[in-house]
């Protein structure tokens, strides 16, 4: 059985590299053209080429979202763009427009074409259709339960990708025009205003039926599918996708590393224990600021799977520094500051090959060797002695006391 792919979002080159270093088998990114989340992109073709080179050097793949639903005026330059993606070695494109899918097969045949979740594919009949059209993979709709995925997999003629973590559209993906209607921002061309997460008054023929202190909202908890991973792997799902091209490098590293550990543990031992899940729950709580739930995997979402009157949970730990270098002889770490911290703060280091390890922040020095009381300037370079053997690209977070439970 081939190993399931862990597919992570890459909002920029830095996050692409972090995702791969922290355990992603593949990353997906949006270019500046023909992509949703265009706001999240700074990938010119040259950047994509650099990302591909890095990914391939680390045995990972790059998928590029070409998932806009183009209007008449959006089609110019499409063919050249697809050829450029093929030329720089992109492995796959994620597409919503049937025309773009067919065109890619004609003009850039080395690109795999993955059918976007914008098509809300929920069964093997849809997969049959795309198989007959020469496509290579289908991303299932987030509306599928675990049983739906399992029964679909029994008949699927193409590799299937499913979402395992991150934000959830309240609507069937791609079928929502709330943003278009309410803000004139086209949700299917990269402008979604997330109007579903706003607050609304609900009436029945003029009579208010809402509560003033808890207005109606269509805001969903984020997806966390960790407890379904074993059955999804056993069902033969080809790829596990993490949502969140807008998320921070720290969030990305934490989430990717957590799922990497779960997948590796299951593939090595054939079992995931409550302790494994508990570790991930605790880990994710250090980075997430929105509550999570099982999405549709456990069945139709219930009242507790929605966010009413609350939009965030608060993280339990805060990313404070990125490790730029570490001197094994002197134990001095070269850090790039990300958030405020000070000498004697309790901290935790982690990395691609470093398990979570607590330590106390020692005396801090700036680049001139002067003692610094408080690290308060983001991106400032500081030095401190750390007795844990750190490596370049490890991360350090400050221990705080907030929520730890997820669901």
């Amino acid at each position: 059985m081939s190993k399931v792919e862990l597919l992570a979002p890459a909002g920029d080159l830095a996050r692409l590299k972090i995702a791969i270093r922290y355990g992603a088998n593949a990353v997906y990114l949006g270019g500046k053209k023909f992509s949703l989340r265009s706001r999240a992109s700074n990938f010119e073709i040259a950047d994509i080429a650099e990302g591909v080179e890095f990914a391939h050097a680390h045995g990972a793949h790059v998928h590029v979202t070409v998932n806009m639903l183009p209007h008449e005026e959006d089609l110019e330059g499409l063919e050249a763009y697809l050829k450029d993606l093929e030329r720089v070695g992109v492995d796959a494109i994620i597409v919503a427009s049937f025309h773009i899918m067919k065109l890619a097969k004609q003009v850039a045949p080395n690109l795999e074409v993955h059918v976007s979740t914008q098509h809300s594919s929920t069964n093997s009949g849809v997969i049959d259709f795309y198989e007959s059209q020469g496509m290579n993979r289908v991303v299932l709709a987030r509306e599928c339960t675990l049983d739906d995925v399992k029964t679909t997999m029994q008949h699927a003629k193409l590799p299937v990708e499913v979402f395992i973590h991150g934000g959830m559209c309240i609507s069937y993906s791609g079928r929502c025009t709330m943003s278009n209607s309410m803000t004139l921002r086209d949700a299917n061309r990269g402008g979604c205003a997330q109007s579903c997460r706003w607050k609304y008054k609900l009436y029945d023929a003029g009579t208010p039926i809402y509560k003033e202190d808890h207005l109606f909202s269509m805001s969903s908890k984020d997806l966390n599918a960790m407890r379904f991973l074993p059955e999804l792997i056993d069902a033969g799902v080809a790829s596990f996708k993490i949502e969140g091209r807008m998320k921070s490098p720290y969030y990305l590293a934490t989430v990717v590393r957590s799922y990497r550990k779960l997948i590796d543990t299951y593939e090595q031992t054939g079992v995931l224990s409550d302790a494994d899940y508990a570790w991930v729950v605790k880990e994710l709580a250090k980075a997430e600021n929105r509550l999570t739930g099982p999405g549709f995997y456990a069945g139709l979402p219930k009242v507790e799977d929605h966010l009413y009157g609350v939009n965030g949970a608060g993280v339990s730990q805060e990313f404070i520094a990125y490790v730029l270098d570490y001197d094994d002889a002197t134990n001095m770490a070269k850090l790039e500051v990300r958030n405020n911290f000070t000498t004697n703060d309790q901290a935790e280091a982690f990395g691609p090959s470093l398990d979570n390890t607590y330590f106390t922040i020692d005396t801090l020095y700036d680049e001139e060797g002067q003692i610094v009381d408080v690290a308060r300037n983001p991106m400032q370079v500081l030095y401190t002695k750390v007795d844990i053997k750190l490596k370049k690209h490890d991360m350090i977070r400050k221990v705080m006391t907030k929520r730890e439970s997820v669901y």
Partner: protein
Amino acid sequence: MEENIIVSPYTLADIEKLYDAGATSILVGIDAFPFASTIYVNHDELKEARKQTKALGMNLYVNLNAFFMEHDIDVLVKELKVLKDVGVDGIYFTDLAVYTEAKKLDMTDLLIYNPDTLLTNHLDVQEYLNLGLQMCTLASEITLEDVVSIASKVTGRVEVIVHGRLSMMHSKRTLLTNYMRFINSDHPVVDNKRLYLIEEKRDDHMPIFEDVSGTHMYTGFTLASFEEMDDFVKAGIRDFRIESMFSNVDELCRIIKDYRYVLKHPESGRAFYQEYERNFVEQHITKGFLYTKTGAKK
């Protein structure tokens, strides 16, 4: 050829009234897969609808717009066979599994692809029409210029929705039921079509209802395209749908008559639009996106 005006009745008894008003096609939902229709029929009622529409020379179309789960596929195949046997004239669908199964049954020529938001340019529309479909429904979020451009460039039939509240969001979730549970209310919300939302900082009344297929939300405005009918016809469009979810049969008959009149007398389009704007203020009559381009970016 007379332009095709497609409407949904509220009961089968409405069919003759709608015919008299000028409708040429009747669209019904089916019990097996309910999905945001004004009416759902069982097999016997479907045959009755076929009999009535045939006697009047009308088309009978069926709404099969649901998303199907794997366990639905066997029932879907059975229903397609029934629809073929009954001899319906068209089947609206959004899930491409319908195409896959219809192809096996040699009935793709009955299919009308209606994927809400997906058809926004002529090349996509043409690719789907090339599959041998009867017709494609254009997205409602594109401009008149785009509609005309698409219709002028494709080979095959396209349909436009010309009037009514437009579908704005479909969620599989029971959003209203869940909210009522959250606020400990037993107010009936399922299949209640009197419900609407007002965003806390805005004024639009946006209809919302929940049925077995999930939660459906509609625009705060009512689209009216009287003034644009001539442009549509000149672009080669012959199929026009009127959304009637939040009307009644008398209101619907009036709307049909007015569109039929405008099709014969295009110069009257502006006056009809202004009349609707004046007389139906509570419906917030607008031209939707026909002259409003939505932005590609934030």
